[in-house]
């Protein structure tokens, strides 16, 4: 018979076939993006009516990449995003882990109230506070090299500071710290170490997994920022990559250059993900603890 349900080899084949077909559904837009980035506009648009859209065929060149750099300050946008993302991730790891250390190991007046406020913020979606936050940051003071200034719009700080601390990151650290053996901390204290020393000599060296989780989650949020920089940054000098995309849609749209730009900002993240995929997936899975 053609189909024997007990045929192990055939069943295995069908399973892999299903898995591969599903994989195609997830991968085809990215394949299209990368291949299109090497094609001139007229060919790119013509190819979408056939399988050629997914193949690097025809007039292949790097022209779109050069074109993208000519059309927009691509390097500046990438630099802005890297700067904002890097600064926020580092500051977030430091400040959130310090707060979590205090919640997990120290006893102080008001601790439980403060911790419940922090946890309660988990149910406030950023989108619901974006508009009042815009009004707030437009009036905040700042003391910089030029003295006292009012208003944070069009700066790096407006993209960094509001994103440093969040309930989820602190919560992840607290959960992890509570799982560490308490004797280690007590031993450190008995030997006369200050709390600061306990934090960076004992706890931090044991916190590799949670630091990776928190860093990856924050990285994904920050690198892909869109709504917030869209409303607080009008000046080109401070624009991150996703908002910089708007540059390609002024006047006539050159789709090849758009694809080149998209490839340029996406492929590094994909490579990063492929190398660290276990850590990426573990970090998403660990947000599941919050239920």
């Amino acid at each position: 018979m053609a189909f024997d349900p007990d045929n192990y080899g055939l069943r295995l084949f069908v399973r892999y076939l299903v898995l591969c077909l599903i994989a195609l559904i997830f991968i085809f837009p990215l394949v299209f993006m990368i291949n299109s980035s090497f094609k001139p506009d007229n060919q790119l648009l013509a190819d979408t009516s056939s399988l050629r859209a997914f193949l690097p065929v025809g007039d292949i060149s790097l022209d779109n990449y050069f074109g993208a750099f000519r059309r927009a300050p691509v390097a500046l946008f990438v630099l802005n995003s890297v700067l904002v993302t890097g600064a926020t991730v580092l500051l977030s790891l430091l400040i959130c882990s310090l707060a979590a250390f205090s919640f997990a190991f120290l006893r102080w007046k008001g601790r439980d109230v403060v911790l419940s406020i922090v946890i309660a913020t988990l149910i406030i979606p950023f989108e619901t506070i974006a508009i009042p936050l815009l009004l707030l940051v437009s009036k905040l003071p700042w003391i910089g090299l030029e003295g006292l200034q009012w208003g944070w719009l069009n700066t790096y700080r407006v993209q960094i500071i509001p994103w440093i601390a969040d309930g989820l990151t602190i919560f992840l650290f607290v959960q992890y710290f509570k799982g560490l053996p308490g004797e280690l901390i007590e031993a450190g204290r008995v030997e006369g170490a200050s709390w600061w020393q306990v934090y960076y000599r004992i706890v931090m060296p044991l916190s590799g997994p949670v630091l990776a989780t928190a860093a990856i989650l924050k990285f994904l949020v920050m690198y892909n920022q869109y709504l917030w920089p869209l409303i607080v940054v009008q000046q080109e000098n401070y624009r991150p990559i996703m908002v910089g995309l708007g540059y390609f849609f002024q006047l006539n749209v050159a789709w090849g250059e758009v694809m080149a730009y998209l490839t340029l900002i996406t492929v590094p993240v994909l490579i990063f993900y492929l190398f660290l995929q276990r850590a990426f997936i573990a970090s998403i899975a660990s947000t599941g603890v919050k239920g």
Partner: protein
Amino acid sequence: MASKLTLSNRTGWTFALPGFALIFTFIVLPFFFAIGLSLTNQRLLSPNPTQFVGLENYRQLLGFAVVTLEPERDEAGEVVRDEAGEIQYPRLRAITRSDDYPQYRGMREWFRWQSGENVMVVIARDVVFMKALVNTFLFVLVVAPVQGGLALMLALLINQKLRGISIFRTIYFMPVVVSIVVVSLLWRFIYDGQNGLLNSILQGLSFGLFQPVDWLGDPSTALPAIMAMSIWQAVGFHMVIWLAGLQTISPTLYEAAAIEGASKWQTFRYVTWPGLRNTAVLVLVVITMQGFALFAQIDVMTNGGPRDSTQTLVFQAVERGYGKQDISGGSTISVILFAIVLAISLIQRWLTRER
């Protein structure tokens, strides 16, 4: 002297203060700010001083009414019909602009339906907001079960013991790490009406029988198209959460089920599913929160169109609060959005509470 080890008010506050101060300033404060602003007429740049207006903003957004239009009749009391035999009705303006009905003044038609000889018209003070509200609910009502269900199926598929299975897990998860802005732009090519990839594929599969559709340009397909793309983008995220849940189920339960001779379905129904209860709540809550925050897809793909068929609450909040500098209007939508999210997460928790 145990207290010496643990009670430390000064250090405790010092360590927690930077984080707490930031959360307080940039999350808690704007949250209460939103509530306060929604009771005023604040604009970003306005020559007029800000005034307290009470619940006026909410009345403006949420006000709606149902009015009945009776057919036009001639002197003899007969229903007037046009040449095609269609019943003639008075214009809606006769009501919304009439001094007889001051409560309907300024309202516009939202939708209507026929009821016998009469026509019932739902009029609203802010039709665009009403459409945004309905679209957002529709989006969540469709995406939450479909995305959650597909993610569970993928998780069960990936949970098999097969050589190379982690490669598939890596691929299914891949769209999650790609920015939603990038994804939305790529899908504009897929949904294009002329020679979009989706039309090409459907025409190829149907041997040319399929008529091309302008997926994002047609009010009846635009929102479903955005739903499908959003499901595609984040389904891997929820697959991973389901997987984490699946791995907490003790293997001995499966062994017991196998010894009892349970079928695949029975094993799922009586072993797997009960073990996933908490995960199910989490997945639903997270999808609901993400769904109500729908913005980037709309901003990149449709701008709320065609004919307001893809307006959403966040898109409207941003368009008013930022685009039109109407801070109080945007804040009011934000507060309504938060109230909905809070209510739904409470309902979801209650429905799936421990029994």
